[in-house]
């Protein structure tokens, strides 16, 4: 008998339908992954199982946990199920813990709320659980507060809270999406081990098909609130039935072909750049220590070259980006574009800045919501001494929008009328409108769903074929960098530890950190085959 059996679950919030006839099962000791793009209803399925739905939600169907219909339970009865029989791990470890309570108290609370044990006994059990999830006593005493821990460590605390009473079912909602790849690998290993050790069922929600492929025994693919396909992982990968499943996997493994880069001719030259920040002083009168975010970084980006920069959070890639864009000065070293320094006399050199543009990660935060597209994409005209006016301006706007696959009529719309993918196209239009020598893509496709991401990558490749485009592509997503760049640099702790032609670095990494990074990144099965063959 299955542990969890969701039967014909239909859910709507107010009059807005969210889920239609969702059915799935999880057996004890089994890992089942629900996957799909945003709006597929995968998280709502998890929250329905937990009984933590928004107030106006209505449901039909059944959610059976060992034969008991959870939808039929009262709120008080459901409180006894949560934490004791079902545990849950969330996406965002930075905010999932109460900032004013110690980690010991928060883990012990799960135990105390369900069992009549003394405070000391609960804390002792909490200690054991924290040890089990990889937070040993000597470094992580019970009295630690969440803000003293890293994201991965906090996620371990959340896991300890969820499994403290050895629940039969653990639900993990995008448990590693907010984490770096190496941390992600450790957390996934931990979840896998715990499932085996406790014989729990694990229902995992993730958008990342590579994670799914590595982890799950069975896969449930959802789209627009419906289950479109379900099956054992190996079987599903071998023979996908539904066109959406095929499209989803194709988009995840999407590859583009870049035109051959022209012969090297230096465009951006970064030499021995150091950027450090002063930190708060230690002790009352102690000195303020310096934190070097970027240490002695040198590299060259050639004209027409597509250069990648990868590294985990805190490695200094954002600081380096800001220095290249001339938003912040550097302490020593030089950054020049076409021979001219980006920063002169304690201010940004506008002649140089004119030749650079940037596309940011967040398609929602990159635009002033109060301006029309016409005004948004012409903002870089501010840098020109003689910006086009009248008909020439309208022409430019129309051209820029057409180039990125939108229509000239979109110029009169406001940004909220566009989807995330369209917004990223508008951001690219803004970056292109001055025909800059260099574009910086700062995690520009990281916030997009896989199918939209594939379209944007196609657009970039197409633009490269139409005009000589030089860009610096910063991303934590190795598979994207692999296909969209000619050369790649790997950054760790403020230093560039390895750089070389992209394919070479990926297939034959030299630095141990690059190897760790590549090994930690989950891969889709067909990509594995390619890697094995080469």
């Amino acid at each position, binding site marked *: 008998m299955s542990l969890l059996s969701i039967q014909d679950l239909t859910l709507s919030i107010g009059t807005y339908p969210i889920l239609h006839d969702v059915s799935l099962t999880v057996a004890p000791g089994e890992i089942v992954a629900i996957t799909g793009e945003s709006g597929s209803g995968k998280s709502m399925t998890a929250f329905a199982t937990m009984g933590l739905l928004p107030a106006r939600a209505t449901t039909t169907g059944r959610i059976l946990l060992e034969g008991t219909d959870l939808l039929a339970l009262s709120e008080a009865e459901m409180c006894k199920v949560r934490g004791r029989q079902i545990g849950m791990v969330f996406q965002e470890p930075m905010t999932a813990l109460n900032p004013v309570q110690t980690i010991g108290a928060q883990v012990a609370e799960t135990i105390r709320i369900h069992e009549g044990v003394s405070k000391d006994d609960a804390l002792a059990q909490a200690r054991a659980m924290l040890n089990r999830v990889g937070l040993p006593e000597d470094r992580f005493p019970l009295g630690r507060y969440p803000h003293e821990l890293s994201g991965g460590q906090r996620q371990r605390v959340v896991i300890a809270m969820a499994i403290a009473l050895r629940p039969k079912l653990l639900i993990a909602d995008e448990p590693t999406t907010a984490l770096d790849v190496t941390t992600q690998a450790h957390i996934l290993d931990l979840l896998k081990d715990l499932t085996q050790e406790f014989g729990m069922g694990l229902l995992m929600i993730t958008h990342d098909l590579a994670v799914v492929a590595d982890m799950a025994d069975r896969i449930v693919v959802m789209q627009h609130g419906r289950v479109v396909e379900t099956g054992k992982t190996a079987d599903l990968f071998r023979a996908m039935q539904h066109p959406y499943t095929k499209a989803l996997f194709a988009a995840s493994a999407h590859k583009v072909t870049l035109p051959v880069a022209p012969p090297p001719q230096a465009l951006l030259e970064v030499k021995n750049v150091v950027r450090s920040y002063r930190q708060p002083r230690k002790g009352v009168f102690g000195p303020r220590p310096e934190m070097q975010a970027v240490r002695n970084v040198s590299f060259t980006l050639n004209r027409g070259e597509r250069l990648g920069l990868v590294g985990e959070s805190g490695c200094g890639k954002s600081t380096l980006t800001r220095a290249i*864009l001339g*938003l912040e000065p550097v302490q020593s070293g030089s950054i020049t574009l076409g021979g001219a320094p980006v920063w002169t006399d304690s201010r*940004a050199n*506008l002649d140089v*800045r*004119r030749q*650079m*543009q*940037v596309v*940011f*990660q*967040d398609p929602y*935060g*990159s*635009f*002033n*919501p*109060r301006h029309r597209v016409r005004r948004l994409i012409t*903002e*870089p*005209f*501010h*840098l020109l001494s003689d910006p086009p006016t009248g008909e020439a301006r309208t022409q430019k706007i129309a051209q820029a929008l057409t180039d990125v696959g939108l229509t000239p009529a979109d110029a009169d719309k406001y940004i909220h009328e566009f989807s995330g993918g369209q917004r990223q196209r508008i*951001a690219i239009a*803004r970056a292109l409108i001055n025909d800059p020598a260099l574009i910086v893509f700062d995690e520009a496709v990281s916030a997009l769903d896989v199918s939209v991401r594939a379209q944007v990558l196609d657009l970039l490749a197409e633009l490269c074929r139409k005009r000589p485009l030089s860009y610096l592509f910063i991303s934590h997503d190795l598979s994207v960098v692999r296909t969209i760049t000619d050369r790649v640099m790997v950054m760790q702790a403020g230093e560039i530890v390895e750089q070389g032609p992209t394919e070479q670095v990926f297939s034959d990494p030299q630095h141990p950190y690059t190897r760790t990074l590549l090994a930690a990144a989950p891969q889709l099965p067909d990509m594995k085959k390619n890697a094995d063959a080469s």
Partner: protein
Amino acid sequence: MTLPRSLILGTFLSVLFLGAALLSFVWTPYDIQTLSIPSRLQTPSLTHWLGTDQLGRDILSMIMMGARTSIAVALLAVGIGMGLGVPLGLLAAARRGSLLDELIMRGNDLIFAFPSLVIAILITAVFGASAMNAIVAIGIFNIPVFARLTRGAALSLWSRDFILAARVSGKSATRISVEHILPNIANLMIVQGTIQFSLGILAEAALSYIGLGAQPPTASWGRMLADAQTLASIAPHVALMPGLAIVFMVLGLNLMGDGLRDLLDPRLQVART
């Protein structure tokens, strides 16, 4: 889209008092300069809708004239607060972390240590009591309110990508403040302005009640209450009416502020559509 109910009620009350204040420039039911001892302390009737005071003056006319003082003082005080506070806040946010930012913020903290009443006391001690005194005292106290709010809101905008994009486009901090920051905090300022307006009405009433605000013969609600205090036991309506005028004026402004916030907050608007 439907308008919030609080906005309709609040605007109605506010417009009512504003209208009464404006009307008082051309017409009041009775002349408040004319004293009529025989008809003193009358209870509300058809001839005197809100009754008369101890000198036989029509209370409705006095309240209309008092509305003028209250609104003028509170509005000018909001003007001072916004006019100085918002630019200071924008400046502090644009130069965040600098010595200038630190100076502006410490200056704000310092003003917060002087309640408007204490400022009024200091000014009165030096220059004597007047309505101008009340305007300056309440206005000074409004400066840090707007400066802090502006700085906080502007700081969160400065970290947004669209500001970064504007910086990459070479725009100066001043230009970004005016072009991008100010329009995006305008709603917040309107809502806060309404709230400070209502607090200004209350503060003006308190100052004129203790004699640090508008001086006779200028009518003011606080002064009317001060005059009525000793008569409260024999003629309660004399003390009741000006107080109710304050309550409803302030209530109206607060409801209007709440309603405006519901209407203007983009997050709530998204939820509504």
